[in-house]
């Protein structure tokens, strides 16, 4: 996993609540057995005027000019501004994979679907929670100023605008540590292998029916 320390980038506003993971990456693309290559199909049904298929060439497909990611002013955006309950629905990790593959590093919203939120950290992609009032203001600013950028500092836990306003955000200490150091947590967990084995041995004695049935 790549380290995440600070990031500055153009902000794209996705002004709707309850954006689900089916919208982020529609099901037909979940047939892939890879972790990469989902970027061209991010928000596929909103981004294109036709229906995408897993093996189709996306370069010639008709674009929906009304969708934010197709608008010139948001070209190269790497921070997504969203509304409440972003990433609700299915557990598909393909959703943060697609956002990352497209080039997004950060999403900022008032709340998230929990599984999506959890999955994002595993991908090196940072979901930030800000209060609704600040999100409202950011939407106004991003609509008002073409090229609107934000700076995210994970160490300091702040989101800053160009005029120097810094908005603090909360992040779980363990997740922050993993992101800052680019650590995958399997290696960290396996440091506790002895504890897991000891726990398992006790469990086998207490509830032997939980072991060895499916073989």
């Amino acid at each position, binding site marked *: 996993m790549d380290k995440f320390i600070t990031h500055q980038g153009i902000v794209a506003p996705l002004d709707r609540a309850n954006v689900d993971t089916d919208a982020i990456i529609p099901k037909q693309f979940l047939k892939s057995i890879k972790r990469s290559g989902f970027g061209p199909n991010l928000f596929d049904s909103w981004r294109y005027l036709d229906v995408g298929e897993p093996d189709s060439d996306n370069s010639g497909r008709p674009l929906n000019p009304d969708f934010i990611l197709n608008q010139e002013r948001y070209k190269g955006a790497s921070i997504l501004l969203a509304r*409440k*309950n972003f990433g609700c629905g299915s557990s598909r990790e393909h959703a943060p994979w697609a956002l990352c593959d497209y080039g997004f590093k950060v999403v900022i919203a008032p709340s998230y*679907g929990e599984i999506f939120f959890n999955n994002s950290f595993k991908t090196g992609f940072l979901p930030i929670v800000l209060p609704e009032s600040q999100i409202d203001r950011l939407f106004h600013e991003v609509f008002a100023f073409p090229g609107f950028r934000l700076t995210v500092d994970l160490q300091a836990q702040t989101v800053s605008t160009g005029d120097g306003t810094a908005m603090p955000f909360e992040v779980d200490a363990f997740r922050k540590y993993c992101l800052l150091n680019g650590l995958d947590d399997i290696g960290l967990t396996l440091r506790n292998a002895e504890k*897991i084995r000891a726990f398992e041995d006790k469990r086998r004695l207490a509830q032997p029916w939980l072991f060895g049935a*499916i073989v």
Partner: protein
Amino acid sequence: MLQRTLYDKLWDDHAVHAEDDGTTLLYIDRQLVHEVTSAQAFEGLRLARRKPWRIDANLAVADHNVPTTDRSKGIDDVVARLQIETLDRNCEESGIVEFRMNDPRQGIVHVIGPEQGATLPGMTVVCGDSHTSTHGAFGCLAFGIGTSEVEHVLATQTLVAKKSRNMLVLFNGRPGRGVTAKDLALALIGQIGTAGGTGYTIEYAGTAIEGLSMEGRMTLCNMSIEAGARAGLVAVDETTITYMRGRPFGPGPAYWNRAADYWRTLRSDPGARFDRVVEIDASQIVPQVTWGTSPEMVVPVDGRVPDPDRERDPVRREGMERALTYMGLEPNTPIESIRVDKVFIGSCTNSRIEDLRAAAAVVRGRRKAQNVKLVLIVPGSGLVKRQAEQEGLDRIFRDAGFEWREPGCSMCLGMNADVLLAGERCASTSNRNFEGRQGAGGRTHLVSPEMAAAAAIEGHFVDVRRWR
């Protein structure tokens, strides 16, 4: 000792190690594996030269991508075929037991887990699928995870997690005739919203829950995720114990009494504290129908499509307007006047034997309406299908002009050929009415099996309480 909720007990019982900030290494008893969210996890293990920690903790099945038509010739869709072959190969190489596509026990992962006794009370159960919450019906802690966590569980038999808060949802009273567990779930989501349960584990209790069968409890827990909660729970009672008896992977006679005695302790202590309590009078619930593109956009069948002009909050209003445009509906339209093109009875929410019996009871001796192009009945597993055929339910459905299919996720998410075409309207017993969920441009109305069956016969929604 402090009074604990069922969730507290399950959490404490699986904590291998906890940091001061509450970050906990949680032991996982069972992982259910399917084709869509596992390939990259097995690949990750291979790249890191890791082996699965405990093979017998896993059970695999292909369900999302499988065709529901004749399978004897294999799968036409080459991309789907590769994904299923990848699961077969990963299970073969690792030694994980898999029910392959033509195994009579194959079915939707959340149907076969309990059916086989792979899901047991007191367990932690995970799966790379958000509807893993289903298994909480058995008094076990069950929740959906992403592919990185699937890999983490394969490699370590644990997850790094933080505890959620406790929510109690009390369904008091008894639901009336024609009102099902699906209606309880939709009514709850309509009340608390799709983010109402975010950050919580929900325990369902009250007289209405005590009266539910295990199938009904699974339906209710299944949709906890649609209320925002990763996990839903129901305490163990004699209904649970009776269901578990004789399940192939459950405790054999040698351990049965010991297991059952332990399972009976899996309930919240009297006076245990919940962070939030929601009380609902189940006797007042009317069969529910969703009208929009989020499960919280739901009204009683005797109601009307809501009017965005009456909504003050601008983000909500725009959401409603967008949903109405997508759904092709006008504000204030009576729900019962909405005509459907297709009907889907199936999914991990409503594809168990009891669901099929309920649908068949409505259909018996009738035929589908002329305007209904297709009615798909997709049993949740090969064993459910066989049971239904032994009871003659398949005949009732076929005689009505419905299609009787092979088990799988099917049109709940339309990864296989079972999809809605753009603009088609569907009465569906599944769990999500998101844009494009059942097919690009498709319009989904979530309902119970009885309501779906009745809509298939009449060609539009009807109130099953009055309709006979």
